[in-house]
């Protein structure tokens, strides 16, 4: 365990990290991340991070040493793609039980390694340490060492118990394990001046394969990809690469930097998300390779490919511009993607109303400012409630985010697009950006939104019925509160011609009428169905003394 805390301290001291360089010694010791808040945290643990970083190695058996939760609840849940081997998708765990907790799980771990070798014989086994065996003191380093010697096969301990920190730390601890136990342990069959490493690329949805044809065309060889669609032998011999690209920003910066330090492999940070970024990355790869001795014509060839691909991509995006005019997008994601897709979205004519910068570095933020202008709306931390309100109030037309916040958008009946790891479309490279724009178009103009936002018609019917009932009640209430005489006189006698009691009474009194026929002549009353009622009225008014008549006589 002392080696684990040493490894963590080393990661916190990472000189390649700009954020770190600006910190005081004391601050640095505290580590990179904010203290986790009980009851207010959503995110993976260190073990999760280590597994994410390494599981895309496709021919390795990934054995999780812990109780069932760590592997049973999480296996086969990532969208990385493999061009061949499938053992990486097999879930292996020691499934520790109560007895193991009491007596220690080392023996079970050793036996598990033996079983995997007997049954599946993979080129290597990665053993992941988790919280419970770390607490009870299982020494996985020792077990892995013994097993390696006994079976003549690399068994690599990945010391990453979940309680030491968040996912990001796990990425880095995984990197440390590779540096310590794997990289440089084998030699490649041959080398070329065009060999590169991709570090921190996981080949989600097979998106690396959208970029690979361009690399192939340029004659560049991916000697090793850490770790998307990677093979054990490739990473073990990756120290012979001529240059490296660090793909996922900070996740594995320790690997890139230490490989530069140990093996003299220069690296740069780049991204294949976005058209501009893809071009910059290709240019940078060519530049580094030429610097390390590749023929300089590589740069011209790269420029030609870039020009062709950019023209193609912009041409493909062009038709979307009029459709996207006036549409506003909200981008909730972390790190690289907070700025790298911004350019493509803007080029397609979308207005960005905000981008989250919770997981972004200072450099990321600078880049956002450069792209979106000084007044870029950078969202530090937005609660789901706030996002929901923003969408419900139609401050944005579409949200792009990771899977965890999708329901916030969808439940507000707002278009949403997944741009994180669980997505099923590949957005990398030039074709990927066109794909992203296509998907946004599909999401924005899907006919469901109009239907879902329509108010329910039977709510309307119910409301009308209610209004009617209320008016009636109001009228009755007015009857009760109003002058009793007015109310009495307003009572309808003839419904056909709308003659009320008051009018008829007045007519009878003023003209001294005595028959229904006479009333009919003097008023609107029809005397059909209301004949009986008029007779009743005539009966109640004494003929002898109609006040109106007396008045008239006087």
């Amino acid at each position: 365990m002392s080696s684990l805390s040493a490894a963590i301290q080393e990661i916190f001291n990472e000189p390649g990290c700009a954020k770190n360089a600006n910190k005081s010694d004391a601050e640095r010791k505290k580590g990179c991340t904010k203290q986790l808040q009980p009851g207010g945290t959503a995110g993976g643990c260190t073990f999760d991070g280590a597994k994410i970083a390494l599981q895309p190695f496709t021919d390795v058996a990934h054995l999780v040493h812990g109780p069932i939760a760590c592997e049973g609840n999480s296996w086969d849940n990532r969208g990385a793609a493999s061009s061949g081997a499938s053992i990486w998708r097999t879930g292996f765990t020691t499934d520790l039980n109560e007895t193991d907790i009491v007596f220690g799980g080392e023996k079970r771990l050793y036996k598990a390694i033996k079983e995997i070798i007997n049954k599946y014989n993979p080129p290597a086994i990665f053993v992941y340490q988790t919280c419970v065996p770390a607490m009870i003191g299982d020494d996985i380093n020792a077990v892995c060492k013994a097993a390696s010697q006994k079976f003549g096969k690399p068994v690599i301990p990945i010391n990453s118990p979940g309680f030491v920190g968040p996912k990001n730390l796990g990425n880095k601890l995984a990197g440390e394990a590779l540096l310590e136990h794997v990289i440089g342990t084998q030699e490649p069959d041959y080398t070329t001046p065009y060999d590169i490493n991709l570090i921190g690329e996981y080949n989600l949805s097979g998106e690396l394969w959208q970029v690979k044809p361009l690399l192939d065309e340029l004659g560049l060889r991916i000697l090793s990809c850490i770790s998307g669609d990677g093979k054990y032998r490739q990473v073990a011999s990756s120290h012979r690469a001529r240059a490296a690209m660090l793909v996922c920003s900070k996740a594995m910066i320790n690997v890139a930097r230490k490989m530069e330090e140990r093996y003299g492999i220069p690296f740069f940070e780049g991204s294949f998300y976005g058209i501009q970024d893809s071009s910059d990355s290709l240019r940078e790869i060519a530049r580094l390779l030429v610097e390390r001795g590749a023929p300089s014509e590589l740069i011209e060839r790269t420029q030609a490919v870039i020009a062709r691909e950019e023209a193609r991509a912009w041409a493909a995006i062009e038709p979307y511009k009029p459709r996207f005019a006036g549409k506003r997008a909200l981008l909730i994601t972390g790190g690289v993607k907070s700025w790298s897709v911004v350019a493509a979205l803007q080029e397609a004519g979308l207005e960005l109303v905000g981008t989250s910068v919770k997981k972004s570095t200072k450099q990321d933020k600078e880049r956002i400012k450069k792209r979106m202008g000084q007044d870029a709306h950078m969202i530090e931390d937005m609660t789901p409630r706030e996002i929901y309100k923003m969408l419900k109030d139609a401050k944005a037309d579409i949200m792009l985010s990771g899977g965890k916040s999708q329901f916030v958008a969808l439940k507000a009946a707002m278009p949403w697009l997944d741009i994180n790891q669980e997505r099923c479309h590949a957005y990398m490279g030039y074709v990927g950006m066109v794909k992203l724009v296509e998907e946004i178009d599909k999401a924005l103009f899907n006919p469901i939104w109009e239907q879902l936002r329509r108010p329910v018609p039977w709510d309307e019917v119910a409301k009308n019925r209610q209004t009617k009932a209320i008016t009636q009640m109001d009228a009755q209430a007015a009857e009760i509160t109003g002058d009793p005489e007015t109310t009495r006189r307003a009572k309808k006698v003839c419904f056909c011609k709308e003659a009320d009691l008051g009018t008829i009474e007045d007519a009878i009194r003023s003209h001294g009428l005595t028959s229904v026929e006479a009333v009919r002549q003097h008023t609107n009353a029809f005397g059909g169905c209301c004949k009986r009622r008029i007779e009743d009225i005539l009966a109640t008014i004494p003929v002898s003394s109609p006040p109106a008549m007396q008045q008239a006589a006087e």
Partner: protein
Amino acid sequence: MAIVTTPKKACAVNPLKMSQPIGGALAFMGLRGAMPLLHGSQGCTSFGLTLFVRHFKEAVPLQTTAMSEVAIVLGGYENVEQAILNIYNRTKPEIIGICSTGVTETNGDDVDAYIKLIREQHPQLAKFPLVFVSTPDFKDAFQNGWEKTVARIVEVLVEAPALEAERDPARVNVLPGCHLTPGDLDELRTILEDFGLKPSFLPDLAGSLDGHIPDEFTPTTIGGIGVDEVASMGQSSWTIAIGAQMRRAAEAMQAKTGVPFRLFERLCGLIPNDEFIAFLSEISGRPVPAKYRRQRGQLADAMLDAHFHIGGRKLAIGAEPDLLFDLSSMLHELGAQVTAAVTTTQSPVLERIGTKEVLIGDLEDLEELARTRDCDLLITHSHGRQAAARLKIPFYRAGFPMFDRIGAGHQLSVGYRGTRDAIFSIANLVIADRDENHQPTPDSWRASTPLRPGGRSFIDATERSIA
């Protein structure tokens, strides 16, 4: 009938089992305004959360006490206290349900004592519903977590009725096992209401994870049974428990309130539903509505139509005990042979499964048994997809998780209608498989050619199962 065995493997491969704490958390999600809280590292919650979101395709409330290395050394009191206060202040829940994990159980955190202390320290929490369940990851499985949690909710939240209090003859408690979907619960509610009964479901996932769109955003569960309704469950005249796992909660209910219970181990199949409907008619004092006579007829017809396709099929099934018992029995009653059965944890129903052996194991075991015994129908949760692809046999997804198909929350298996739909789905898979992969060729009729794997003959299969 069946012998229950445990393999002597050190390494579980392709786990069938999931851990107890998330089974417990799911039970809490059937309460209204609830926030389940796992006492452990943040990963324990994160993995569970991802699993639930992928299964239900819904926002899922689940929090963590975020135990760090230092917190583990010092004990988890402060983390539990902070988590409860943060949740209480920020999300305004009606109840917080706490499940322990492997880390905090290994450490020996006494959460019940913590809660007592927290209530003393923070008077605003003195009466606030806090329910703690001990669910170590290194023991038992998902189903046990659910079982323990529901029993605990009954013990803590249900109020013992006053002696002279009268029971409501129409009110019925329903304690569903974790193998029932929100769709199943809706179906049961309709059936009970058709008999004039007023059911209280505990937990009620149909209220919270059925996919309905709430008017307002809420960070806790958006529906489910309210704490007040749970408290008054003692006024019911009956408790109906579904699945053997719910015996514990039903007994707790009886012990606390005296409400008698009837346990239905299965609700998929003709005979189990006959018993269920007869019981409802009896307790409600009403004749069976014509609707259910028709539905029974439809199920009988479905069985007639499906038995051609399901009869003689060799079934490989991997599921938690109650689901395994329910589905395998239903198919057994349609003439299928339960040829390979794998489950996650012990249960009294296992030995009554219509097969020779039930293995407490993983999906590697199930795949291996299915291969060696020539099974031609696979039933398990979505993690069986790799095995199904390798075995090249029809695959019916059942249980939790089901992350690679949509509508998991509405897959029906209870009642006459639910059984009918399940039978149709399974039979259609078999029919599609025959059309796509087993069209006869001139060679398939040659006596000299041995039966290809996947080729089936009822006699052959029977002989082998006897042998």
